[in-house]
């Protein structure tokens, strides 16, 4: 730990274990400043005199509500519009036309899994609006899912700062899809109403979320532990319907298991779900031995009562 930070080294270590055990996310040594900054803001908001006092309260009393706030504050991702632009080009140029051909129009559902403050799903909505003419009779539903957090609340409102709208968003899109409100920019209702946002723990049961033709989970995999990664990829496999697509970051892969996906050769990070539903083990409730890795007792997480709320 750097001497300039106020958080006790033992607390930093405990927070690292807490995020791994509750949500499977690794906090690295390089995140010290980020952790300090985010939690300091939270400590002030929660009325604590210092950051250490808040963490002391967190671990001594095992407050579930505070644990949720701490973990979601730590997990908030700084994202930008059209981040990983190649992925959006793949969706617009390849995936949606393929699905349009396959379904002869019909309804296609696109999910941003871990949508944070919403830039990814709003970018997808802009893309869909731009290419609607070439996809006749196709209804596209857009859904953003993430842990309950301030970021997700901002996503629901579609409100972005002056800085956020200038990262990745072409100026023509800004003036077409946003209105100015004081210092902020707000997504117009015509675009915002096309998207639904759902509060959901990314590591919990996904059976209520339904299935999708395109699931975006980009830029997350490298941060999470191996057991959590396996568990999430298995969930994602259940979320993607047959012949649907999983979009990971262009430098991310499924590792050794294929989770019933095949890579799409022309697009890095894009995987297509195999077609025969009946042969898909991820659609049946057959227990998987790998589950044992994540179902072990969680020494820190279990200090918090009812941690299923996360």
């Amino acid at each position, binding site marked *: 730990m750097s001497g300039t930070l106020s958080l006790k080294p033992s607390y930093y270590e405990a927070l690292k274990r807490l995020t791994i055990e509750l949500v499977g*996310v690794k*906090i*690295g040594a390089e*995140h010290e400043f*980020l952790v300090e900054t985010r939690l300091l803001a939270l400590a002030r908001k929660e009325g604590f005199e210092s950051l250490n006092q808040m963490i002391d309260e967190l671990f001594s009393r095992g407050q579930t509500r505070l644990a949720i706030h701490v973990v979601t504050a*730590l*997990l908030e*991702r*700084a*994202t*930008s519009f059209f*981040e*990983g*632009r*190649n992925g959006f080009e793949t969706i617009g140029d390849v995936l949606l036309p393929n699905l349009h051909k396959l379904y002869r129009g019909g309804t296609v559902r696109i999910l941003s899994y871990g949508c944070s403050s919403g830039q990814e799903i709003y970018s997808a909505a802009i893309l869909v609006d731009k290419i609607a003419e070439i996809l006749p009779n196709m209804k596209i539903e857009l859904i953003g899912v993430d842990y309950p957090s301030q970021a997700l609340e901002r996503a629901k409102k579609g409100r972005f700062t*002056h*800085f956020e709208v*200038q*990262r*990745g968003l*072409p*100026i*023509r899109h*800004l*003036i077409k899809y946003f209105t*100015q409100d004081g210092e902020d920019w707000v997504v117009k209702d015509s675009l915002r109403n096309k998207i639904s946002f759902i509060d959901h723990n990314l590591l919990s049961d996904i059976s209520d979320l339904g299935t999708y033709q395109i699931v975006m989970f*980009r*830029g997350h995999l*490298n*941060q999470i532990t191996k057991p959590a990664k396996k568990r999430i990829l298995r969930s994602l496999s259940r979320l993607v319907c047959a012949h649907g697509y999983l979009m990971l*970051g*262009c430098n991310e892969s499924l590792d050794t298991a294929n989770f019933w996906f095949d890579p799409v050769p022309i697009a890095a990070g894009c995987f297509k779900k195999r077609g025969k539903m009946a042969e898909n083990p991820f659609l049946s409730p057959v227990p998987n031995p790998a589950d044992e890795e994540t179902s072990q007792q969680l020494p820190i997480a279990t200090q918090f009562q009812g941690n299923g709320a996360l």
Partner: protein
Amino acid sequence: MKTATKTCLIVDDSKMIRRVATRILRELKFEPSEAGNGREALDICKASMPDAILLDWNMPVMDGLSFLKTLRNSSGGSKPVVVFCTAERDIIKIAEALDAGADEYIMKPFDSDILGSKFTEVGLLGQDRYAQSTL
């Protein structure tokens, strides 16, 4: 094969803004040059047309919009990528700049991420130069 360094003319009456933009552009591997108003910028463009122009709106002698209209009507003036960089945030003003031939638009204050993002948008930088943020 080594690619030629791209040139970018910074047109702004604020010395401080020119200094900050010069530093960021050097980090982005551009070769920056400076002008304090639209008239000076036209003289520089006449001598050698830059690849890109970072253009303020409100300046003495000749403002950014007049400069841009004159540039786009001059020989070789369609070549540079022009990115407005101004405190003007009104949607009508933004639309006016785009109609006059601006390729992109930055609202001040800005930082290196915004400049990099906008330059990527207009093809001056490679795609996805920014890694996905972590945590």
